[in-house]
Structures are given as structure tokens and as C-alpha cells.
């Protein structure tokens, strides 16, 4: 059984189409990065998966309809909406008491162990913690829940680099065990690239790229071509080209690497570069046309 199965998922707000016939299958044990510009429909998709918003089309999460079976689903699904949602008046000890009191799959000792590695005091109120500490606390709570699906919507927004790195390292080392599924959205793609098993680009409510990282490496190539080879490289139909220090950086989709090998330095593009190639151009073109 797939963890998430969406077919023709659609969501409109009046005349605005937030999601337009999205098909998505996420198998269990994957770490999916959902990448898209602001307003692309990422949060709408996550809200639909979490049963927070009604939708058209078919959607099954862990075999359940998230909108109608939300109460049952939330025993097996956990999410961090963003760093700012923990109630500011609450004490750390109260947060532990509360989650332990309402969640049948919460392992309090585990949460305590995570917290012991931080400088967070049990008696502190959440409003007294730094943003990074709040994220640590939220992660400690969530990681101590034996959930089958963890959804992270911009979990590190506004955190400094050290906290962000630590957040994802902890997630990968102490939580992920190849049976749980994680779906994460973030704008700091480069920081999570190495932990993803799958990547989905979403733009204007549509899935524009859906690939496992293995397939991603086989499919896309980035060529740093010196001027003398640019014409030959262009003939192979790059999907994107930009200039870097007098050389051309070209990204190819599905072009055999053997054909590219002699034309310059060859590597797999980063997700961020591919994101700019696939989505950035359209946005820029539109802005250019409007000007």
C-alpha cells in the first residue's frame, strides 16, 4: 500500500485554482521533498493530505480518506506546520504532559532524551525560547511519536544555518528508519537535497516534475561548457542555459551523458538549479513579457 495516493487532486478557492489535477504516489519509507515557489499549492496539497482542507479528486493517506477519517488518521500522522505554532503560553513540561496525555503512540522517555541534548529547560515557557529552540522542542515532540507519516511544512523557516542543519541531521539519524514516510517542503532545497529519496516540483497547482533521486541523477545532466563547445552543446537541446564566469552552464533532460562528455565538465545538477531551470524561466519570462 502506498502511503499517499492522489489522483486528480484539485482544490479551488473561488476562481483561483490552488491545485489542478495532481497525481502523486508516495510509497512508504520514502523522504519526499515537495518543492515549489510561493503560492504554488504546496501548503494546499499538504493541508489536503492532513485532512485540513476539502478537495476534489481521489486522495488516500495510509489507506484512509484524510478529510472524512481525520480523527483516526491523526493517530498515525504527525505534522509540523511551521516553527511558530507551538502555543507561546505553554511550558515545556506542560507540552510533554499534554502530548503524553493525548497521544497513544508518544514515547515520553524518548522526547526527554532528545531534550536532554539541548539547552531547553523544562520549566521555560515556549515564549521564552528562541525560535531555534522552539523548533528543537517541536521536533523532539514529533520524533517521539511513532507515526507512519510525518509532514513538515517549512519546518525550519527563519532558523539560522546551524539549527537548520541540526534539524535535518537529527531527523535523518534519529527518526527515519526506512519504514516511516516523510514529506517535507522548504525553500532551502540545497540543505535537504542529500536526505531526499524523491522530489516533486509543483508550480501553479500542477506537478511539473516527479522523480526519485536515483532517476533524477540518471535523467538530468549539467554541463559547464567553455565557449568553443557551446554551439555543439546547444545543438543537443538544453532545457536551460546561463552564464557562469564566462562559461555556459547548460542543463539537459534525458540526453545521454556520453554525448555530453567531451563538451565540458559534466555533473548532476542540484535540485535548486533544476528548479530554476524548470520553473524559474517561466516566471522570469512572464515578468519580461509583462514589462
Amino acid at each position, binding site marked *: 500500500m502506498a502511503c499517499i495516493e492522489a489522483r486528480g487532486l484539485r482544490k479551488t478557492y473561488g476562481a483561483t485554482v490552488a491545485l489542478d489535477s495532481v497525481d502523486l504516489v508516495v510509497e512508504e519509507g520514502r523522504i519526499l521533498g515537495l518543492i515549489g515557489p510561493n503560492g504554488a499549492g504546496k501548503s494546499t496539497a499538504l493541508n489536503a493530505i492532513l485532512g485540513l482542507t476539502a478537495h476534489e479528486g481521489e486522495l488516500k493517506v495510509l489507506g484512509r480518506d484524510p478529510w472524512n477519517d481525520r480523527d483516526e488518521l491523526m493517530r498515525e500522522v504527525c505534522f509540523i506546520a511551521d516553527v511558530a505554532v507551538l*502555543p507561546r503560553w505553554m511550558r515545556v513540561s506542560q507540552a510533554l504532559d*499534554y502530548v503524553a496525555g493525548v497521544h497513544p503512540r508518544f514515547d515520553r522517555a524518548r522526547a526527554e532524551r532528545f531534550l536532554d541534548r539541548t539547552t531547553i529547560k523544562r520549566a521555560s515557557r515556549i515564549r521564552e525560547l528562541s525560535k531555534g529552540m522552539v523548533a528543537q522542542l517541536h521536533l523532539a515532540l514529533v520524533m517521539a511519536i511513532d507515526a507512519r507519516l510525518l509532514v513538515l511544512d517549512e519546518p525550519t523557516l527563519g532558523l539560522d544555518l546551524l539549527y537548520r542543519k541540526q534539524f535535518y541531521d537529527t531527523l535523518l539519524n534519529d527518526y527515519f*528508519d526506512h519504514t516511516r514516510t516523510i514529506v517535507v517542503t522548504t525553500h532551502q532545497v540545497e540543505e535537504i537535497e542529500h536526505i531526499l529519496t524523491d522530489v516533486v516540483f509543483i508550480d501553479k497547482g500542477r506537478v511539473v516534475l516527479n522523480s526519485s533521486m536515483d532517476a533524477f541523477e540518471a535523467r538530468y545532466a549539467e554541463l559547464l561548457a567553455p565557449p568553443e563547445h557551446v554551439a555543439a552543446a546547444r545543438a543537443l537541446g538544453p532545457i536551460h542555459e546561463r552564464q557562469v564566469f564566462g562559461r555556459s552552464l547548460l542543463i539537459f533532460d534525458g540526453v545521454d551523458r556520453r554525448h555530453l562528455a567531451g563538451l565540458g565538465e559534466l555533473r548532476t545538477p542540484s535540485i535548486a538549479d533544476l528548479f530554476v531551470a524548470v520553473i524559474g524561466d517561466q516566471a522570469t519570462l512572464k515578468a519580461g513579457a509583462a514589462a
Partner: protein
Amino acid sequence: MTTPPPPVAPSPVRPFYWSVRRELWEHRSIFIAPLGAAIFVLFGFLISTRGLIRAMDHLVGQDPITQARMLAAPFGFAAMVVIVTTAIVGIAYSLGALYNERRDRSILFWKSLPVSDLVTVLAKAFVPMVILPVVAFAVIVGMQLIMMVVSTMILLANGPNATLLWARLPLLQMWLITIYGLAAMSLWYAPIWAWNLLVSGWARRVTFLWAVLPPIGLCVVEFIAFQTTYLSDLLHDRLRGFDEAFSDKTPGGFLGLVHMDPVGFLTTPGLWGGLIVAAGFLAGAVWQRRYREPI
């Protein structure tokens, strides 16, 4: 496909209990405000005791009913201050209960946990309908005991009138009436608490205005359109009408156990009508928290 991890033995959970605990953590005014009111009352009472000895001397010759009424008056007034305070706390609480969590976005945290919207809304209705009356009663008993002890010490040091106080002041009776009155108020005002919760889950801002102005507006429309006042009479009855619980309705009259009228109260159609309306409002609040976009 991979098999799900062997589940850890699920630990027993009590979502309702912890949901109520969480309300009490957040809203410490539930305890602080009634205690504060009691402290103010006691402060005033202490100053007033300078006239106590003379007042007691004056009471000696009166008939027992008058004695009881005069002795009970400051105790009853003190209780009333605490009850009014808890009512104000209840209004502030119920208008914020489903509003603040949306404003500070913490609803996204609450909704990430397996606590149903029904449990959440019932826990929030439980606070003004059960917790606040219980707190009010406990504070009233403590406050009246202190008043009693202080009065006794003053009177013991100054003559024989302490016995008169203990013989005539119907303290236990007053406590019974307080329990009964608080329970009756809780049931009678249920539709108001439920309405406030509904509005607090619905309004994007200024919940107080949304709770108060539309009903007044409807009354105005009714009056202008039909020259009738059914709606305003209904609201008026609801706001002041919990004296259905007592058979003696003379204002300022001394309430004794004989005036408690539970049968009359429980057979008032207004009580049951109000409870049905309250249930409808609460169902609306649950539906809204469940099916509307959380933010």
C-alpha cells in the same frame, strides 16, 4: 511495500481530561480572578468590622428571621461579587476559546494531535459550565469561612455576641443554596456560553462585537418591521431569568432553602429550550472547527 514498524504498546490516553487541563494552564484567570475578587471583598470586609460590635448589639433584640437576614447580607453580597467575577471571566474565556488558537496559529499544533474537534469544543464548554462554578463555590466557601473566623474573633474579644452569630447565620444553608444556584445558572446560561464559543470559532476578529451586535440588530429589525419585541423579550428573559430556579423573586429578599424550586426550574420550558439551542450552537462550533480551513 514495507511493513509498518511494530507499534509500541499504545499508552492509555485521556484526551478530554488533558484538554481541560490545558485550558486551565492557559487561562490562569479562571483561578486568579475569583481569588482576587475574594481578596478585595475580604479587604473591604475587614475595614467594615469596626462597626461589627455595635451592629451585633443592635441585632440582639430583633426577631430570628431579621437576625438571620441581617447576618447573611454581607456573606451573600460577598458571594455575589465572586459569582459576577467568574461570569465575567467566563465571557472573556468563551469569546477567546476558539479564537485565540486561530490567531496565534497554535490550532495547527492542536490539530496535529489525535484529539477530535468534538472533544476540544466540549472541553472548552466544560470550563465556563463546570470548572468556573466549582471554582466560584470553593472560593466563596473559603472567603466566607475567613469572614466567619474574623467576625468570631472580634466578637469573642468583645462580649457574648459570637454565639448569636453562629446560632443565626445559616452558613450551611447558604452553601447549599449557592451550589444549587450555581448549577442552575450553569444550565440556564448554557446557550450563552455555547453562542460565545460558536462566535469565537467563527469571527476573524472582534469576537465580542460579533457576539453582541447581531442579536441586538435582529431585535431592532423585528421591532421596526413588526413593532413586536419577541426576540428582545426572549433575550431579556435569558439574561435575567435564571431566578426561575427560586420561588421567592422579591429583590433583596432573603433566600432560604424553602425558596429553592428545582422541580419548577426543571419543568421550565425555557431551560430545556435553552439547552437544545446550546447543543445546536456547540454542534455548530464542532462542525466549524472540523470543516473550516483552520486559519
